[in-house]
């Protein structure tokens, strides 16, 4: 039960408020698929 509490608290700390209109950056790789994926 101690572990569960610690995890829950850590999760709360991760919830940093995002500014309004914030768009997360795309993952750096792999890049966009230009045509189609096979």
């Amino acid at each position, binding site marked *: 039960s101690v572990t569960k509490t610690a995890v829950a608290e850590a999760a709360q700390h991760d919830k940093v408020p995002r500014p309004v209109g914030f768009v997360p950056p795309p993952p750096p790789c792999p890049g966009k698929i230009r045509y189609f994926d*096979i």
Partner: protein
Amino acid sequence: VPAAPPAPLGCDDPESEAAAAVAVNYINGQSHHGYKFTVNSIKSIRVVPQGPNNDFIFLELDLLETECPILSPTALENCTVRSFVDHAVEGDCDVKLQKVDGILSVLGSKCDSHADSNEDIRRACPDCPLLAEMNNTDVLETVAAALNDYNSKTTGSYLRLLEIGRGKIQYHPGYIIFTEFAVGATNCSAEEAKANVGACQLLPEDQSNFGFCRAVMVKRPLQDLQVDCQLYGHQVPAPDIPLLSQDTS
């Protein structure tokens, strides 16, 4: 205090795209068979600094086959990417580049290509023709018949087969063979070749002496053969007739 290392490049960053463009041009330039490839996606990029203004760049690329034969003079930017239902072929390449003072050069590349699975094509298009083996009897027969047909009708150079690019077979409705093949012009006219085809030699390896043909043979329900050849800068061999002749008839 050493400067902080630069942020890693993203796969869609302009610098990555520039490296991918140099890499794909190098790959196409090294190839003498099949079709030109174009970049579908940059899968990974890693920059390893070697010194001031000197980096190694390791690229992993996902390429797609275009419809432009490798011998075609068409610029890659103008080549159509072969569609998924045309049984697309993908290339996976690892490329090592060097960037010195902003100038990119390729040090080496390793590629592997494979066609999409028949099952994938079937799912998207149940009746679409599927890629056949290059040594498929029907494909070979179609190419031979098509080239004979073209040579029997042309007034230009006698063409010889350089390589088969693709063969596809459609089973329903009808039995149809689709082929694409590269040809080379010879020093004979088609008429001269009738007399002694063995004497006809391919012209020097100049792009203008190459061409590309598409042929479709319908075997069922009714037999039919259609051939279309495009020569890159068609050259007709000079006739064996002097330009100035005493003969006034």
